[in-house]
């Protein structure tokens, strides 16, 4: 099979599959080398982006799926009035951030960082499949460890958890203004403000 015909087959398979299609599965179906198939998928992804098409290819853990381009959201909204995803509460975002950066992590550790119990918040995150159980520690009572899911990566627009930005970079790039973070509804605005909570400069 030429690279070109592999790419065509990949288009068809991704379209039918809907869910992210693993490069290994695709390679097996076509009876081709999986590294070659992965290469083709990456190229195809780039082609769609370069041509700035209405549909794009998203990579999650070496699995690929067709999705709509961000810019098309307004048309889709008007066409389908899709169900708006419920926004996460600030508590949920905190827990999610802790799990994302410290995974695998126990509920005890999360509680300790936040200084408050996170049980209900975690139930919600589990129900939305943003976090999952990821084994147990060997410690007393063998507490459950938690990690993030593929659904989390999708929502973050990340190809893999390795692409998560360094936490120190965030602190430098994100400015938190007091009054606004209190109100979860205005959270998106809060990111543009200037005042900083960090007192590092005083050191």
């Amino acid at each position, binding site marked *: 099979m030429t690279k070109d015909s592999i790419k065509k087959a990949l288009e068809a398979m991704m*379209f*039918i*599959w*809907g*869910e992210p299609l693993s490069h290994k599965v695709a390679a097996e179906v076509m009876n081709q080398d999986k590294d070659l198939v992965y290469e083709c998928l990456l190229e195809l992804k780039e082609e769609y982006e370069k041509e700035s098409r209405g549909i*794009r290819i*998203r990579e999650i853990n070496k699995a690929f*799926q*067709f*999705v*709509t*381009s*961000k810019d*098309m*959201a307004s048309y*889709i909204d008007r066409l389908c009035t*899709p169900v708006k*995803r419920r*926004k*996460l509460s*600030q*508590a949920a*975002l*905190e827990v*999610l*951030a*802790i799990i*994302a*950066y410290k995974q695998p992590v126990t509920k005890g550790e999360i509680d300790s*960082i*936040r*200084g*408050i*119990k996170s049980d209900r918040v975690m139930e919600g995150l589990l129900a939305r499949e943003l976090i999952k159980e990821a084994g147990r520690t060997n410690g007393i009572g063998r507490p459950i460890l938690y990690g993030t899911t593929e659904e989390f990566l*999708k*929502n*973050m*627009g*990340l190809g893999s958890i390795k692409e998560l*930005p360094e*936490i*120190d970079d*965030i*602190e430098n790039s*994100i400015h*938190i203004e*007091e*009054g606004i*973070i*209190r*109100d979860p509804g205005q*959270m*998106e605005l*809060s*990111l543009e403000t200037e005042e900083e*909570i*960090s*007192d590092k400069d*005083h*050191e």
Partner: protein
Amino acid sequence: MSYKVKMESFEGPFDLLVYLISNAEMNIYDIEVSLILDQYLDYMTGLEELDVAVATEFMVLAATLIEIKAKMLIPGNLESDFEGDFEDPRKELVQKIMEYKRFKSASFLVAQRFSDNDSIYEKPQEDISVYLDNPEEFLKMDTTSFINAFNSFLLKKQRIEEMKREYQRIERDRHTVEERILYINSIFDFAKVDKLPFMKLLASKNRYDTAVTFVSILEMVRDHRADALQDEPFGEITVKKLSGEEREERIRRERINRGENHDKGQH
């Protein structure tokens, strides 16, 4: 207080603490604990409206703050020119606050990215139910299982061959009991005597040869070809070869004995 903030809007005690510190424009590494504690306790008056579990969490931190304040009141504790192992009682708290702040920042990044990607849509899988009832047969084979299967076959085959060799050897050995009797007879013939110590009859001194020789002599005794004499337990065994006449005499006597026994049994 510069402006009013509802207790409910704080995610937890650390969240409140971080707010108070930054609102007071304090250096996080040099918190004025008594001032912050007063403000913190002020806010805690609003806790009555919160559920008990949450209130407890806030009180734990309040207790920590009180403890730190007390420690700091001990004279000399805060003299920076003091040489030696000086431990700032605020150190642990500051570390915890810094860690909390890091993740708080990260939570804003998560929020931002989530809202960015909210405008990307995926479509459901096409209907593939027609395929599902009709699974394709597929031969499951890989090098590892292939080699494992073959190695276990080789092992089995090896065991069988060992067993077979054993079997053949036993057969061969059985054969040699008769051979050994011939050999023993030839030794008596050669020595031209009718009595020989058992040890003299061995072809070699290994355990196997000893056993075969012993079994052969037992066979000869049973067959009235020889007598085995032993003066004391574990003593030397002397083998006496019986002549043809002696053997016939023994056989005759045995028949009579058997006949008498037979008659007794009849009556």
